[in-house]
């Protein structure tokens, strides 16, 4: 898994590629919390390149979202498709998070 962090005018874009399982999920969590703790007010997580997400990955996302909520930072997800979308739907997270189709839309909102 690799994470590309892109600081933009409207917020920070985190592009996650590869597999987010028990081994790599902590890395995402750390990176995401770093951005949120840095006082960012908007974080967009692009999951287009994510091939697989395990329950540990979901937990990392939940931890990040919870932290964002505490810090008053809005967190949005985009590029959710395929297996990841399936997992999001089944676990009910689709309704919990703000999910938009593309990065552009996320930043336009």
């Amino acid at each position, binding site marked *: 898994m690799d994470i590309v962090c892109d600081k933009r005018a409207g917020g920070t874009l985190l592009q996650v590629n590869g597999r987010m399982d028990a081994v790599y999920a902590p890395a995402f969590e750390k990176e995401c919390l770093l951005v949120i703790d840095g006082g960012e007010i908007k974080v967009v997580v692009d999951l287009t390149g994510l091939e697989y997400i395990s*329950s540990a990955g979901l937990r990392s996302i939940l931890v990040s979202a919870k932290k964002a909520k505490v810090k008053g930072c809005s967190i949005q997800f985009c590029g959710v498709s395929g297996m990841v979308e399936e997992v999001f739907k*089944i*676990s009910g*997270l689709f309704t*919990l998070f703000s999910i938009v189709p593309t990065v552009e839309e996320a930043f336009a909102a």
Partner: protein
Amino acid sequence: MMKPQGIAFRLASLTLLVSTIILAIIVGYNYSVSRKIIVALAEDRGTLLAKSTAKKISTAFMTVQKVIDSVAFSLEDDRLTEKRVNELGQRVLINNPEIFGSAIAFEPFSFQHDNQYYAPYHYRLDGGPIVFARLGSDDYQYFYMDWYQLPRELERPIWTEPYFDKGGGYELMTTYTVPFYRNRDGQKVLQGVVTADISISWVQKLISSLSSREAEYVFLLSRYGTFIAHPNANLVMNETVFTAAESLEYPQLREVGRRMVAGETGVVELNDLPMTGDSFLYFSPLPDQHWSVGFVCSKKEMLAEVSRLNREVATLGGLGFVALALLITFLAKRITHPLRELTVSANDMASGNLEARLPEATTKDEVGELTHSFQAMRESIKNYIENLTETTAAKERIESELRIAHDIQMGILPKLFPAFPEHREFDIYASIEPAKEVGGDLYDFFFVDENNFCFLVGDVSGKGVPAAFFMAVTKTLLKVVAESRLEPGEILAKVNDDLAEDNKSCMFVTLFLAIIDIRTGVVRYASAGHNPPLLLPKNKDAEWIPPLNELVAGIMEGTQYTTKSMTMHPGDTLFIYTDGVTEAMDKMNNLYSEDQLMVVTNQCLGKSAEQLVDSVDKSLKKFTGGAEQSDDITMLAMQYLGKGSKQEGDDRWI
């Protein structure tokens, strides 16, 4: 003892080898240079000796010449009487011991007109008393002899070739002969010759007296190369240098003979000469006689000094070599001694004795540094082993605790099958396989009342100890809440609220919980984000229970869950599992997938709950092919058989 492969041995042998080579070069150089010098000196000295020998011989001959010349002068006086002539001849012998005999030979009829022969001859009988003889007879017409003819014709004094005198002396001799003349009518007329015989044995004695200690021997060659004097008496007057060269098969001798006969002075190197071996031959002429003196020196004799010097140098070198060998051996041993001690200690350490005594680092050289390094290494290893022992002990403790935890976790799940042999209405079977010692999956089943049977499967996020704790909490809560006869949705909502309260780590659990009324087959169920179970209707294809997409439990307090209802007919099976099944991976990270699960379950139509779970498990094992299990795998199959269908069920399923 020095080891053949040891540094000391190699150092010593290498140094000694090099010094031996250097010594050999020095000795060789010394020998060749001193030999050259000696040979050069010997050449000069030999040539000088040859010359001086020739000169000494010449001088001896010169004395004779002078005497005879003066006698010849006296004889030119007409007034000489016979008596006077005889006295003259006798006096020559008395005054000159080197002269063997002396003749005054007159032309035929010139001294006494009536006498054809007049040649008084005085000689030494056997080298002793002087005797007188008259030469000349019909048998011995002296004026035809060489000693008479040659000076007469050449009109000058000559030395004859050596010859054996049969006239009077009966000796091997050479003769100096001088013509004398008288004035007749203003003309010089030859009157005769006066001679002096020199015995060759006298010449040989002269030569041997002249032989210096440097010379092996001296020899004399006549003008035609005949040996006049030679230590080998057989050669004298019998052989020439040329015939000797022939018989010895020594061509070089012929060349030397030619040069000697030609009257040259010189030196040649003759190898392997008879008697003397490798030799130098110096030669110088005796011009008056046209003879040549040869001077033979043995090279061995000549180089004896050089050889002696060389032997001494070699001996000194040898002693030096031994001293050097001892010194190097001593030094090398001294240097390598601590190394060897260190090796012994290192071997001791290598066999596990870390307390092995290390030699004291007494020197500040490389060996000392090595010893220090070794000490440091030993300390490091000791520390490392201590740490490792502690770590290993800690790890073993944790592992042991985890094994116990595993047993406890498995112990809280119902494991006994068939679980309810007294209830013929249904058949239930479940299996769980954690990826680690402890896992986050759970299942459970129990009667909430007489007719309502509750069964559930859950999956806590993550794996390992945290998940195991969360799983235990969830399982306990579920049991407590479910027994309060709530609807499945209400049960999940209640459990969710309890779990979500103060859940800082955001752990969550997906749950599928169903309660079946075993009398009617009506199933009420709810799902908290759990993957949809499969319904395998009797004699029909399997179908997914439509997902409700409701949130996983433990995240958000107050989440509501819908209770859905369906009816199972006898022979229908409900298959509930965790994502460890569908997300099981092979070595290429390919997922097992829902599709494959569907295919396998469809092949299990008509099988019992246990057979179904086993089939899926086998299919999974085959798919993963030994790849490391990435997630806990839990499966639960609930087959509804209908009320009082024991006989029927037995007929159908067994």
